[in-house]
C-alpha cells in the first residue's frame, strides 16, 4: 500500500513550471529519498504534499486523503521537518515540547525522554540559542514523539556541517529502528541519503527521472573501464544505456545504466575484442553526477 501517491501533479509559478506531471508512489514503511539538484522541484512537491501550496493541476493523496483536505486528524499522523520552517524560537526546548504535546493524543512521553537524551538536547535552552544541528534535532524530536505514520523531511541536512550532518543521520537511523514509520526525505546531499534510504526518486527540472529501490539502482549502474590491447575498438554508436563514453589513449571508460552480470561483459567483448574489462560498482553520488551530466548533454544536443 502506498502512503503517498501523486497523479499528474503539476505546479506552475507564472510561466515557470516547477513540477510537471509528477507520478509518484511512496510505499508504506519505506525510507524514500527525493533527490535532485537545486531547483529540481523537490521542495515544491513536498509543499504540495503537505498542503502548504495548492497544485495547479493533478492531485496528491497522503494517507489516503487528498492533500488539499489534510485536516488535524491526518496531521496527527504526519511529522514534518524543514529547513525553512519557522519554529517558535523564543521557546526553550522544554517549552516547545510542552506546547506540542497536547496537540497529539498519541504523544509518547517515554519516547520523548529517550530522544531528548539520545539527541543530547538541553531542555532549558531557548531554540534561538541552539546550533542549527541541534535545532533540526529539536524539530525532529517534536515530529517523532507521537510516532507519526509518515515523516517528511525537507532538506534536513542543508546548512549543517559534516559533523552535525553525521550526528543527525545517526539520530535518524537510531530512531528508524524504534518505529515502523514511512519517511520521505528530500535532499541534494547524496551520501546521507544513501545511508538512510531504501527507495530513491530523482527529479530534474520538475520532472521525475526515475523512482526505484536503492538496491536496484546501485545494482544496475556500473562503471566500466576497458584497457585496449592493440585490438579493434568500436566506439561508434554505443548502446543507449552506455553513458559518458570516453577514450583516453588505450583506456575507454563509460557507465552502464542497466547492468546485468554477464550481459555487460559479453557486450564489451563484442565491441572491444581482447581488451581487459574492469566493472566497478558505483556510489549513489557517482550515479547522480553521471545522470546530471547526461541530462545536460542531452539538453545541449536537443538545443543544437
Amino acid at each position, binding site marked *: 500500500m502506498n502512503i503517498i501517491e501523486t497523479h499528474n501533479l503539476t505546479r506552475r509559478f507564472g510561466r515557470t513550471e516547477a513540477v510537471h506531471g509528477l507520478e509518484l508512489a511512496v510505499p508504506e514503511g519505506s525510507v524514500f529519498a527525493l533527490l535532485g539538484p537545486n531547483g529540481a522541484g523537490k521542495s515544491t512537491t513536498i*509543499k504540495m504534499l*503537505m*498542503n*502548504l*501550496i*495548492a497544485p495547479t493541476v493533478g492531485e496528491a493523496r497522503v494517507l489516503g486523503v487528498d492533500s488539499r483536505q489534510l*485536516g*488535524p*486528524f491526518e*496531521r*496527527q499522523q*504526519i511529522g*514534518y521537518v*524543514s529547513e*525553512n*520552517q*519557522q*519554529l*517558535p524560537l*523564543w521557546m526553550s526546548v522544554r*517549552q516547545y515540547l510542552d*506546547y*506540542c504535546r*497536547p*496537540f*497529539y493524543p498519541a504523544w509518547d512521553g517515554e519516547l520523548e525522554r529517550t530522544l531528548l537524551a539520545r539527541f543530547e538536547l538541553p531542555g532549558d535552552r531557548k531554540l534561538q540559542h541552539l546550533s542549527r544541528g541541534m535545532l533540526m534535532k529539536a524539530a525532529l524530536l517534536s515530529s517523532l514523539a507521537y510516532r507519526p505514520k509518515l515523516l517528511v523531511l525537507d532538506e534536513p541536512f542543508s546548512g549543517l556541517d559534516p559533523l552535525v550532518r553525521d550526528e543527525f543521520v545517526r539520530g535518524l537511523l537510531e530512531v528508524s529502528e524504534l518505529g515502523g514509520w514511512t519517511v520521505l526525505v528530500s535532499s541534494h546531499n547524496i551520501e546521507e541519503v544513501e545511508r538512510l534510504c531504501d527507495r530513491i526518486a530523482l527529479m530534474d527540472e520538475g520532472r521525475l527521472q526515475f523512482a526505484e529501490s536503492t538496491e536496484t539502482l546501485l545494482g544496475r549502474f556500473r562503471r566500466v573501464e576497458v584497457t585496449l590491447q592493440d585490438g579493434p575498438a568500436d566506439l561508434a554508436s554505443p548502446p543507449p544505456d552506455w553513458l559518458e563514453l570516453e577514450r583516453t589513449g588505450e583506456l575507454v571508460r563509460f557507465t552502464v545504466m542497466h547492468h546485468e552480470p554477464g550481459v555487460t561483459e559479453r557486450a564489451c567483448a563484442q565491441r572491444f575484442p581482447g581488451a581487459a574489462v574492469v566493472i566497478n560498482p558505483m556510489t549513489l553520488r557517482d550515479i547522480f553526477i553521471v545522470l546530471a551530466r547526461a541530462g545536460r548533454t542531452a539538453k545541449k544536443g536537443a538545443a543544437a
Partner: protein
Amino acid sequence: MNLTWHILKKDFVRLRLPLALWVILMVGRFLVGDRILRVETNDLDALQVTLGTLSAMHNVLFGLQLILGCVLVAALIHEDSVVGENAWWVTRPISGARLLGAKLTGLVLFFVVLPQVVSLPWWLYAGFDGRAIGGAVIQLAYTQAALSLLVLVVAVLTANAARFVAMVLLLVFAWMCCFITFLAHSPDVPVGVTQTRALAGVVLSLAVIALVVVQQFLTRRRGRSWVMFSAGFVLMLVLANFWPWDWSRWALWRGGEPPALAQVTVAPTGEVAFTKAGSNLDPSLVRMEMGFRYTNLPGDYSLNFGGVTGTLRWPDGTEKKRTGWIQSYPMAISWHIMGLKAPAGIRLEEWQKNAQGRGDAAITFIPRSYAAKLRQQAPAWTGELELAAYHGELVAEVPFREGAADGRAGHKVHVMRIEHLESGSLVVNLAESVPIPAGDDLPIPLDLSSRRRPPVCYVLSSRDRTKFVLLRPYAESGTLVNSVVVLRSTFSVNVAQLGNPADPHWLDQAEVLKVAYWSVGTLVRPAHSDGLHETQFRNGHRVEPATGPKPAPGT
C-alpha cells in the same frame, strides 16, 4: 476548546512583557490624569502652562500606547502567521478555524477585557456610578475593538513586522485619498445621504474585514484575500461618492420623540438675516439664516442643533430647494437656559423678560441671485426641521468655597481656587472628572450627535435660586483618559452682575451648579412661513431694516 486555550496561553506567555508595558503606559496615563485633577497653583497663567505640559505628557503616553497596541495585535497574529508556506502551525494538527478562535479570543481578552479591568479602579476613583461605568466599558470596548479590527486585517495579509509597517503606510495613504474624495462631496448632498454613505462605508468595512480574516485563516490563499480586500475598498469609494439614498432615519439611532415633547411646536418667525457674505465652499453662495421659535417646551428640556430641509417659493413660481442646519443665538439666551428651570430650580422669569434677541435659526446657503430676489419679493418657505432633544439633569451642587466637591451621575466637581481680582471680578477654577457616554468619539465619520458627550452648563447661584449667573469658561483644559474626561476650567465672573446691595454676602452661601443635558431623542416638525423678509440684527438685537431694495451681500 482546551487546545484553543492552549494556543492562547502560549500567545500570552509570548506577549507578556510588551503587554505589561502596554498596561504600564495605561496606568501612567491614569497618574497623569490624576495629576491634572490635583495640580494647584496661585498663578492661573502658570496653571495653564502646567496643564498644557501634563496634557502633552498624557498624549505622548497615549500615542506610545496606541503604537504598542497596534504592534501587539500584529505580533499576536504574526506569532502564527497565516501568510506564506513556512509557518509552524500549518503542518501541525491545528485547524485554521481553531487558530482563528484562539486569536479572536486573545484579541478580546488582551485588548478589550484587560483594559477594562485595569481601568476599573480609575473609573471608581473618578467617581463613576454604575451607568457611567457601563458607558465607559462600552466606549472603551468600541475604541479598542475598532483599532484591533483595523490592525487585524492588515496583520493577516502580511507575513512579518516590516511588511506590516509598509502595508499600514500604504493603507493610510490610500485612506487619506479616499477621505479627501469623500469630503469633496457637493454641498447639495443632504446630510442624511452623507450619514447613510458613512454608515454604509462602516458596515461594508466590517463585512470586508470579517470576510478577509476568515478566508485567510481558513484557506491561507492570500491572492484571494487581496482581491476581496481591494474589491471592498473600491466598493467603499463608490459608496462614499455615489450612494444616492437617505436611509439615515432607519439606520441611525436617534431615539425617537420623547412623549413629554409631543406638544412642542416649531414655527418660523419669517425673519431672514444674511450674516456672512459668501460661502467658503462656493463664493457664489450666500449664507442665509431663517429664524424659528419653539412653544410648549417643558422646563427641563432643551432643543438644539439639527437639520433643516425646505423649499423657497416665489410668487412667480420660482422654486429653490435647500438643506441646512440649525443654530442657536445668542448665548445670552442659550438653549441651556430652557432646560435649567426644572432640574436646578432656577427662576427664569427675569431672564425671559430680557430674551428679546434672535432665537434659533436655520442656516442654509442660497445663490446670490436668489438673495437679491428675496429682497425684492418675499418668498414662502415650506420645510421640515429636525431637532435634537435634551433633558437637563443637575449633576453637581458644590458649595462656593475652595476645596468643596460634589457630584453625581459619574460627574465630580471640585472647586480648586477662587480668586478675587482688584477689578472686582472673580476668577474660579474647577477640577472635574466627567464620564462620556457609549458611542462618543467613535473613530468613524458618523454624525451620532445624539450619543455625544452631554453638553453641560455651569451656574453660580444663590442657595434660594433667586440670583444666578451663567458661568462661561475662558480657559479650559480637557484630556480624555480611558473614558474619563479630566477637565480644568477657569471661569471669570463680573461681580457687578451678581450685585444685590441688600445682601452683599449672598456669595458666601452660593453654590456652583452643573447641569448635564442628556440626549433623549429627536423631534421632527413640519414648518411653513407665508413670507420671509430680511431683518437686520446688531449685537444680537433686531434693528429696523433699511427701506428699498439693496444689493445682495458681498456684491
